[in-house]
């Protein structure tokens, strides 16, 4: 069995003055090369979980009391010297891209973290080229960061964390300001990274995207893990906060006896299943 990249057990967090825990006995594991999608309504504790996994809680947020264990590649998080050391293994992309752009030009933004780590210039150039290809930001390099659109800012922020080559990437709503094409581009890039062995934990409200791209889903509600498993298992279970519309439609059709194939998670999958069902000579649809 593959050793987990990240292992969480008994994780609870309570903010000062809050009437309930933001996280309540959370436990799960993620293996190298896995994309774990995290779902849940607002206030479910998704962002708090990301902050715990990156060490931001308790090292930066002083108004949050945390208990429980987090291990990164078998090493307990408290054993790391500081946030900077944790970020050598764990890269965090926060929700608001505006506060993560700390340089005036995009090129400077992308190379700045690498410069801080003392990465040699040829390697910086190689990673920069790769980031431009993966996130389609080559045309933005000489632009001012504050003059980018919301979607462009998000792509630059994700790319700048990618440039640090973390073995675990935590993405907190990385596509919230992206259009469908931009979202697809970022999700494809995430898949490429996962195929190279990077573990990606991604918080998303775009459930259709997660259903297709994630290897497993973790559903949260009120600080607790409600379900964890394959996208199909989680989304067809009662713990899913929401479902892709196409899955909902297929389930309703199945109830009425019009869908006898596999329940699809995406529109292309639905189209393929529908085609195979209509080509099936035993199908009722061909007799009518």
């Amino acid at each position, binding site marked *: 069995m593959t050793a987990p990249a990240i292992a969480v057990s008994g994780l609870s967090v309570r903010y000062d003055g809050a009437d309930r825990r933001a996280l309540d006995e959370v436990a799960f594991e993620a293996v190298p090369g896995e994309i774990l999608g995290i779902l849940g309504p607002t206030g479910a504790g998704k962002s708090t979980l990301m902050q715990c996994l*990156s060490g*931001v809680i308790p090292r*930066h947020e002083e108004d949050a009391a945390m208990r429980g264990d987090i291990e990164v590649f078998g090493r307990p998080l408290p054993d790391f010297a*500081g*946030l*900077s050391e944790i*970020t050598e293994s764990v*890269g*965090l992309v*926060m929700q*608001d891209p*505006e*506060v*993560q*752009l*700390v*340089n*005036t*030009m995009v090129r*400077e933004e992308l*190379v*700045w*973290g*690498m*410069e*801080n*780590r*003392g*990465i*040699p*210039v040829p390697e*910086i*150039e190689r990673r920069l080229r790769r980031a431009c290809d993966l996130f389609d930001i080559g045309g933005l390099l*000489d632009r*001012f*960061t*504050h*003059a980018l659109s919301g979607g462009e800012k998000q792509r630059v922020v994700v790319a*700048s964390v990618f440039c*640090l080559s973390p073995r675990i990437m935590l993405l907190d709503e990385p596509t919230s300001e992206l259009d469908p094409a931009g979202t697809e581009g970022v999700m494809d890039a995430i898949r490429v990274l996962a195929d190279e062995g990077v573990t990606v934990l991604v918080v998303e409200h775009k459930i259709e995207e997660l259903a297709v791209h994630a290897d497993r889903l973790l559903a949260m509600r009120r600080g607790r893990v409600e379900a964890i498993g394959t996208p199909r298992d989680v989304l067809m279970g009662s713990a899913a906060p929401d479902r892709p519309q196409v899955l909902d439609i297929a389930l309703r059709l199945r109830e009425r006896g019009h869908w006898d194939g596999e329940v699809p998670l995406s529109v292309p999958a639905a189209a393929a299943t529908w085609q195979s069902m209509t080509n099936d000579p035993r199908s009722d649809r061909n007799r009518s």
Partner: protein
Amino acid sequence: MSGTLLYQPGHTFLHRADARAKIAAIIVVLVLALTTTRIDVLVALTAVVVLGLAVLARITPVSYARALLLIVPLILLLTLLQALVQGGPALATVGGVSLSQEGVLLGLGIGMRLFAMGICFYGFSLTTSPSDIALALHKAGLPYKFAYLTSFAFRFLPLLQDEARTLLTAMAVRGSAETSSRHPIRRGRAIVRMLFPMLAGSMKRSSEIALSMELRGYSLPGPRTFYRTHSFRTGDAFLVVGVLLLAAALLVMQWQLPAPFTEGA
């Protein structure tokens, strides 16, 4: 121009010049401008700065015409004030009030000084990226962590500008007439009302930005690499030598030539 930032990327001589050479040139111009009030020396200095920016950075007076519209009334006001408060022979008498010739020359001199220094800084800001300024300060011996903050300040300004714009818009859509008023006092009242939430928002943002910087290794103790480096080249040396020669010529002009508009001149 992009928001609060003046810097515009380009490929002119001044864009390529080392920021240290440009800072040295600015210091020379500042010292010159601040050590004389002689109108002829300041006019010559201003003319050379205007010409230098046009030739070396393709920055023509058209690009700072709007700033001129602001500075000319200021120069006229200064001149008028000096003409009224300085003694000496009168240049003219208007409605029984005599305007001192010495005061007029002094006021014009101060105005020219402001103008020369202003366009010098304008040229520097337009051709020097904030990160180049940080690199120059670092090369001059300032630890990178402190030098970087100068560059970061330029990034923070547009954030504050956005925050202010958002707050003013929020006030306007909730029916505050003051935000769109042309009356300076009413408009000022809206700005004062906006200051507290802006300050609170800035504090929150600065904490988040500090976290982002930390997450990208800002406080790592190890050696740092520099992706882009500037070396002090021959052209930079020419720039500094050229400005020093200009300073020498203007000092000679000041000492050897009699001041204009004075008796015996």
